[in-house]
C-alpha cells in the first residue's frame, strides 16, 4: 500500500508544481490549438471525408502536444540535481516513475479536455448522444494512459542524453503506434457518429492489452533505466 | 508478358547492392579503427617515453 502512497506523493508534487507554474499546460494547450488550426488548413473541416478522419487527427494532436509534457517530466528534475536527490530518497525508481506517469496523465487529460470543445467547433462535430461521449471519454482515458506510460519511460531514458528534445519524439512515436491506432480507429468512428460494431471490440482489447503490457514492462525496467 | 525480367533484375541487384555496401562500410570502419588504435598506442608510447626522461 505504501507503494501507491509514495507514487501518489510524487504525483501530487509534480501536479502542485505544474499548477503553480503552468508551464507545460500552457505550452501544450497552445500547441494543440495551433495544430488543430493547421490541420484545418490542410483538410477542409466541413467536408464529409474529413468527418471520417477527424477523430484520427485529434489523436495526432494529442500525441504531439503530449510530447511537450513528457519531455518536461524528467527534465524538470535536472535542475539543482533534484533527480539525484529523488533517486537517493526512500522512493524507489518504480514509485517515482508511477508518480510521474499519474501526474503526466492528469496534465495530458486536462490538455485534451481543453482541446475538445475547440475541436468540436472547428470540425463541426455532432455528438450523437450522451453514451457516445462517455465511450469517447473511455477511449481517451485508455489511449492517454498508453501514451503517458510509454512516454514517461522514454523521458526517463533520454533525460541525460544530448539532443534530448530530438531523441524523445524519435524514439517514442514508433512505440506508441498500436495505442494510437486503437484510439484513432475508435475515435474516428465515435466522432463520425457511426455505431461501434462487434469487430471493433478488438481495438478496446488492444488498448487495454497495450496499457497493461507496457505498464508492467515499464515498471519492471524503470529501475534499470534510472539507476542502473 | 516479358516474364518481368526487368524487375527481377532490380530486385536481385538491390539485395546484393545493400549487402556489398554494408560489407564495404564495415571494411572502411575496420581500417579507420585500426589506424586509430595504432595512433593511440603510439601516443601512449610517446607519453611513457616522456615520463621516463
Amino acid at each position, binding site marked *: 500500500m505504501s507503494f501507491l502512497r509514495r507514487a501518489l506523493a510524487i504525483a501530487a508534487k509534480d501536479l502542485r508544481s505544474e499548477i503553480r507554474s503552468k508551464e507545460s499546460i500552457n505550452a501544450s494547450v497552445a500547441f494543440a490549438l495551433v495544430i488543430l488550426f493547421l490541420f484545418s488548413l490542410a483538410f477542409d473541416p466541413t467536408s464529409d471525408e474529413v468527418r471520417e478522419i477527424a477523430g484520427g487527427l485529434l489523436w495526432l494532436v494529442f500525441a504531439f502536444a503530449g510530447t511537450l509534457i513528457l519531455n518536461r517530466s524528467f527534465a524538470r528534475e535536472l535542475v539543482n540535481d533534484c533527480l539525484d536527490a529523488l533517486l537517493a530518497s526512500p522512493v524507489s525508481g518504480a514509485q517515482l516513475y508511477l508518480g510521474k506517469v499519474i501526474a503526466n496523465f492528469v496534465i495530458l487529460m486536462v490538455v485534451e479536455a481543453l482541446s475538445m470543445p475547440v475541436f468540436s467547433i472547428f470540425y463541426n462535430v455532432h455528438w450523437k448522444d450522451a453514451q457516445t461521449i462517455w465511450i469517447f471519454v473511455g477511449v481517451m482515458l485508455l489511449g492517454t494512459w498508453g501514451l503517458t506510460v510509454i512516454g514517461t519511460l522514454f523521458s526517463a531514458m533520454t533525460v541525460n*542524453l544530448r539532443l534530448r528534445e530530438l*531523441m524523445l519524439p524519435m524514439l517514442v512515436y*514508433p512505440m506508441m503506434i498500436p495505442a494510437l491506432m486503437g484510439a484513432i480507429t475508435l475515435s474516428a468512428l465515435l466522432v463520425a457518429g457511426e455505431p461501434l460494431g462487434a469487430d471493433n471490440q478488438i481495438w478496446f482489447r488492444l488498448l487495454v492489452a497495450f496499457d497493461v503490457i507496457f505498464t508492467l*514492462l515499464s515498471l519492471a525496467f524503470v529501475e534499470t533505466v534510472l539507476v542502473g | 508478358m516479358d*516474364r518481368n525480367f526487368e524487375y527481377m533484375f532490380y*530486385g536481385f541487384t538491390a539485395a546484393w547492392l545493400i549487402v556489398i555496401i554494408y560489407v564495404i562500410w564495415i571494411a572502411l570502419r575496420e581500417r579507420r579503427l585500426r589506424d586509430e*588504435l595504432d595512433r593511440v598506442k603510439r601516443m601512449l608510447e610517446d607519453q611513457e617515453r616522456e615520463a621516463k626522461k
Partner: protein
Amino acid sequence: MRTKLIILLSVLAGGLLAWNLHTIFLKVPDEASQGAVFRVFYFHFPAAVTSFSCFFVAMFSGLVYLRTRNLRYDAAAAAINEVAFTFALITLITGMIWGRIIWGIWWAWDPRITSYFICLLMYFGYFMMRRAIDEPHRRARLSAVLSVLASVDIVIVWKSIEWFRTQHPGPVLEIRGGGGMAPGMEAPLFWNVLAFLMLETALILVRMRQQSIQSEIESLRRYAHAF
C-alpha cells in the same frame, strides 16, 4: 581462430548462395501469374525470417547483459541488431520491388511491409541513442531496455496493423508465396535461409571484433588522458 571461422562461414555462405542462384535461375520454373520476378522472393523471405529472429536474439543478448553486466553481450547485441537492420532493409526493398509487380504500386500499406518499416524506424532510434551515449555501461543498459521494448512492440504493432488493414482493405494480397508452392520450388528457399544465417553470423562476428577494438581504443584513451 575466430578469423578462420569468419572466413569459413563466408565461403560456405557464398558457395551456397551461388549454387542456389544457379538453381533459382535455371531449374525452378516460372510461377504461373508473376513470371520470373517471384524469384526475388528467394531473397525476400530468408532476409525477412533471419532479420526478424535476429532482433529477438539481440533482445536476449541485451537481457543477458543486464543480468551479467558483461559488456561483451552488449557488443553482441549491437552487432546483431546492426546486421538485422541491414537485412530488414533488404527485406523491405525487395518486398517493394516485388510489390511493384504484384500490386502495381511501390507501397501498399500491407501489414507486413508496414510493420517492417516501423521496425526499421524503432531500431534507427536505437542506433541514434547508442551514438548519443558515451559511457559504455550506461549505453549498454539503455540499449538493452530499448531492445526489449522494441521487440515486444514490433509484435504488437504487427498484429494491430493486420487488424487495421482488414478493416480498411487496400490493394492488398497476402504474400503467401509459401502456400501451394510446388515441391521443387521450396528447397532453394530453405537453403537460402541457411546461407543468409551463415552470412549474417560472419558479419556479426566481424562487427563484434570491431566493437572490441573500439572499446580497447576507448580504454587506452582513458589511460592516456589519466596523466
